[in-house]
């Protein structure tokens, strides 16, 4: 497997590691199963419309599509389980083991370690949101400088947890309705149907409006951000979206002298940067 360099230099341009091969594979499985689930599920919610019956027929109709839906659902749930294991393992290796070595694996220390993780929402996210509002309403020309993961990305990342728990559990209840009603009241099936389909609609709209906008249609990445395939982000986008992290990584990797200015002030310095092989062209 290809080694994960934090910064790759190719043809004088720098590329920054965002996702490891493992993470990219997880994302591709997640994306493809979700698309399959939406395609085989939505025609049931919107039965009676022309597009729904046509689409459903293309996907095997009522005799096949539900099987595809369930297979994809099982894969997605397994992926969810794997991801939880993956998180726990990494956290153990990177945080708990060092804590043990120092001899202080207390509850407070572990909680602090959890909160320190770059994916966990923190105070900076709130500041960034406020700064972004200022920027969007022309109160300032400075965009908030992103850390390793911006609040948008954290939102993207956290949403599937909620979605998988809600859609997954309600789906399991409907799938095993005979078993489920041995314990729970029969009404649970009606609840599950509503939760399953409404949450799915929410998730689908969220993904196609928000996530796809950010990675596909946003003016800076249109028509498609390739980071989910290559795992590496260009220096231009790195400066634009994750400046704080960019500076940190550049310093760590020994490129202190080549750090580009933050996005808001890049224009006046543009000629200088061009000479240094800046990716802006």
């Amino acid at each position: 497997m290809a080694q994960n360099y934090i910064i790759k230099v190719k043809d004088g341009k720098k590329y920054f590691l965002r996702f490891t091969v493992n993470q990219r594979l997880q994302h591709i499985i997640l994306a493809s199963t979700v698309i399959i689930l939406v395609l085989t599920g939505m025609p049931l919610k919107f039965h009676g419309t022309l597009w729904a019956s046509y689409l459903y027929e293309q996907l095997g109709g009522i005799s096949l599509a539900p099987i595809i839906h369930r297979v994809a659902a099982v894969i997605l749930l397994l992926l969810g389980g794997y991801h939880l294991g993956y998180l726990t393992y990494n956290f153990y290796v990177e945080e708990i083991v060092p804590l043990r070595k120092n001899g202080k694996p207390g509850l407070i220390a572990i909680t602090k370690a959890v909160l320190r993780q770059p994916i966990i929402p923190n105070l900076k996210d709130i500041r960034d949101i406020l700064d972004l509002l200022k920027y969007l309403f022309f109160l300032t020309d400075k965009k908030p400088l992103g850390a390793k993961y911006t609040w948008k990305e954290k939102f993207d990342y956290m949403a599937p947890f909620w979605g998988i728990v809600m859609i997954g559990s309600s789906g399991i209840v409907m799938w095993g309705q005979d078993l489920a009603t041995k314990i729970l009241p029969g009404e649970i099936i009606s609840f599950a149907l509503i939760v399953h389909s409404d949450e799915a609609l929410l998730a689908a709209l969220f993904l196609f409006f928000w996530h796809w906008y950010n990675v596909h249609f946003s003016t800076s990445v249109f028509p498609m951000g390739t980071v989910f395939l290559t795992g590496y982000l260009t220096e231009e986008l790195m400066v634009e979206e994750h400046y704080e992290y960019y500076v940190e990584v550049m310093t760590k990797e020994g490129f202190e002298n080549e750090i580009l200015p933050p996005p808001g002030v890049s224009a006046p310095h543009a000629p200088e940067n061009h000479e240094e092989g800046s990716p802006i062209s």
Partner: protein
Amino acid sequence: MRLSRGDDMVYPDFQFHSATRGMVAVFLKLIFLAVFGLLFLAGIVFAQTEAAPDEENCLICHRYPVLGRYDENGNRRVYYINDQLYANSVHGKLRCKSCHVDLDKIPHENVKKVDCSTQCHIKDPSSNREFSHKNMVQKYQHSVHGMGAGEPNGFPEDRPTCTYCHGNETYNPYAYAGFWGKSEELSRETLARCQGCHTDKTWTKKIYAHFTHRMRRRRNQDEIIKLCTSCHEDEKKMERHGLEAVSTFKDTFHWTLVKYDVQNAPDCITCHIPVGYTTHEIQPRTDPVSPVYKENRIKTCSNQGGIQTCHPAATMKFAEGRVHAYGTKVQLLADEDVATAKTREGEPLLMARAREEISAEEVFHYKVLSWISLIYKILIAGVIGFMSVHQLLDFRRTRKKNKKEANHGGK
């Protein structure tokens, strides 16, 4: 509306305003006379010889397709009888007057509606006695839909008559879709086998059509649902009887299955008249003989007479979950304060029945369900709204910024 009550056909789509009705009537009379005359001649020339014996000579007039009138309500009524279609129908051996009694005068006066419990002069092959639908009609009158036996049930005008459901389309030349009707699976090969021994072709066709109709369901799920909801979705009509309109069946997965043409997809009769019950004896769900009576529901959901097994492992808890009953009654109880303030017609009865039938637990379940729906509505609207606003602002801002940078570059 599918059908008229009684023996002639009503076409409510051909309605006129009262002002034009008089003029139309004059025109029609003229046209009627002209066409009548022409067809009379044509009828003599092209008279079909294979038709059923018309001993009462009714077809002397009723063979003409234009025979009809507009009634007081502007509905077109057609009195045409296609003798060949009639001869092939299940009643083809009956003489007109067997059902249309007391029609001795021409033009007919005091025409009575056909009573299906009349004894007709045809022998029932099983008992060799005069045949009648009386048995069925009597059973039906005892059922929840019937007019009532002894003391009459309320609102007789709301109650479906025989022909409301049994629309014998054979008699309706406009609705009729070929001799085989909608039963495309009727096998000509099987029929040919019958005709090997039963040489009277008309008789064999008729008996064959009768049996095959009886052996399968005459209406598909969609048509059943349409038929039942033609009354049961009518809120006012239902309120008169202390019932709530069926409004939530179409939210269920059962309906989704119907829409996707699943074989044996559950419609109204799958659960309300399952295997072992008959349509004509349907009772309210509070009656212990009803298949949706609480104690009987496990059987209805899990195993209907050992034939249809939809939810084989259904438990009491499973069966207690109501499929589509979160209608008006629960709503009335859930927001009782609001409900008592307004006085809709028939509401007291509905309210009383709601108190009697709906448990506090069900009201709670209904509230939970409403909360879930509401939360998701808010969530979806909120998230999508927020995202759209963000996207628009972002797009606008980026364009401004790019313009600014382009200007700087130009200088």
